[in-house]
């Protein structure tokens, strides 16, 4: 599913964000990426949906060889990857339903299917009755649910979540985590970068710790392992 072979990433300013990452993430896994700020977690995630290119090394995602992937083909890679961010990244002028439908318009899905599927995923994230609300009328947790609905609406095989609970209070965070777990149960791989010790230690999953651009720990049902 996701395979990295000695992947390096050096930014133009000379920062070595990743220094020889080798890892395999299989279908249907739920993986936490942990580590101090600036350790390379975000870069690791960006490589997967091809916002950044590796400087060196091999990288396969969903059968795409990202080393050889042409610029024009990037959209097709991304259609199989759902992304969720700490700051939700919703379109402010669109309602919850429109934000979700938007991801389907982009891939030119039939109009009828868009309507049906949008309502389906909104129901799944528990926001069916908030379909017509605009982002500024929703709480952080609700906005993140919309973002997750948008990420899964096209049935991607992977969800990349970069600190999805970073801006949420503990109770709301748990709601989001249960939702992600539910999505994972339905067969979607989840790769989630997080600083949330409590979540990692309670909802036990595979933990990959990155420090200074290197994987220092990779455990099945691991712990957070940092003192915050």
């Amino acid at each position, binding site marked *: 599913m996701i395979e990295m072979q000695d992947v390096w990433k050096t930014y133009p300013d000379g920062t070595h964000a990743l220094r020889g990452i080798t890892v395999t993430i299989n279908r249907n896994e739920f993986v936490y990426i942990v580590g101090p700020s600036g350790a390379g977690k975000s870069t690791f995630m960006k490589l997967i949906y091809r916002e950044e290119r590796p400087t060196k090394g091999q990288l396969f995602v969903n059968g795409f060889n990202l080393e050889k992937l042409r610029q*024009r083909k*990037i*959209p097709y890679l991304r259609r199989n990857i759902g992304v969720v961010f700490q700051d939700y990244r919703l*379109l402010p002028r669109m309602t919850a339903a429109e934000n979700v439908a938007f991801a389907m318009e982009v*891939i*030119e899905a039939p109009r009828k299917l868009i309507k049906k599927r949008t309502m389906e995923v909104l129901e799944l994230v528990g926001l069916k009755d908030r379909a017509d609300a605009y982002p500024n009328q929703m709480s952080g947790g609700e906005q993140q649910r919309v973002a997750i609905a948008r990420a899964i609406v*096209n049935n991607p095989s992977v969800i990349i979540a970069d600190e999805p609970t970073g801006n949420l209070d503990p109770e709301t965070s748990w709601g989001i985590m249960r939702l992600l777990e539910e999505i994972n149960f339905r067969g979607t791989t989840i790769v989630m970068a997080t600083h949330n010790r409590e979540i990692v230690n309670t909802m036990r999953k595979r933990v990959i710790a990155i420090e200074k651009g290197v994987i220092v720990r990779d455990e099945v049902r691991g712990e957070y392992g940092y003192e915050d």
Partner: protein
Amino acid sequence: MNTAMKISTVARHLREGGRSVFRNGWMSFASASAISISLFILGVFLLLTFNINQWARDVENQVEISIFLELDATPEQINLLHTEIAALEEVSKVRFIPKDEGLELLKERIGEDGALLLEGFEGDENPLPDAFTVEVYEPRQVSAAAEKILELDRKRGEPLIWRINYGQGTIEMLFKITDVIRIVGIALVAGLAFTAMFLIANTIKLTIVARRREIGIMKLVGATNSFIRWPFFIEGALLGLIGSVIPVVVLLAGYDQLVKASRLEMTVLLIRMIPVSEVAPKVAGLLIGIGLLIGVWGSLISIRKFLKV
């Protein structure tokens, strides 16, 4: 764009493009106005050029070569010269005008009063020489043809042609003037179109900056570049269309009035203004076409850089 676009997608692009024309209110207004003004001036030039060309063509078509023969030319020699001239490739028509007919023509031209003066010059008293009038296919070849005719005559040793006349100098001048008008018009219009294009590019850039986040999100969910590009494309085309329809309407209405009001004066000056119905398709087609081109081009240059990321 390798697969056919769905109708719902086309509708979406049109809607988005139209929306952002309104959203950018003042900038849209400014760039459509810039196009309008440029195209208006271009239109004035077009109408001017069309009319001058028409006038030049009229004048050119009246251009002919008059050849006056020596008085002692024999009918055989005249016949031979006639065939030789008719054989030249530039020549479309040769007409022999015997001196009697020449006299009649002269009488007609100077009118009744003058005709009295010419009384008594008929028959053997006729002082006029026999003549040819020669028409050419291409007005611009008139001096070359005249030159060839003289050449023919010189080779004979004993010249038959007494004088040749084709408005030497005047014709060349006329061609030079129409050329200058054409060049100045093109240069002016190119400059204006360029300015308008940059204004459009700026307007579109504004849309892009305003929608930068949105574009980023579109890319994250897997939108292709062409999907992102289309609404901007349409926005540019709409600005171009709005900016060109206005001057077309104003120009043609104004021109129609002008033609109606000045018909009498112009006829006196022997200038025939082209009727509106004849210029309308050309002017409208050209202006709207150029307007669309400017709009689309403007939007292209502003998104190109942006989509590279």
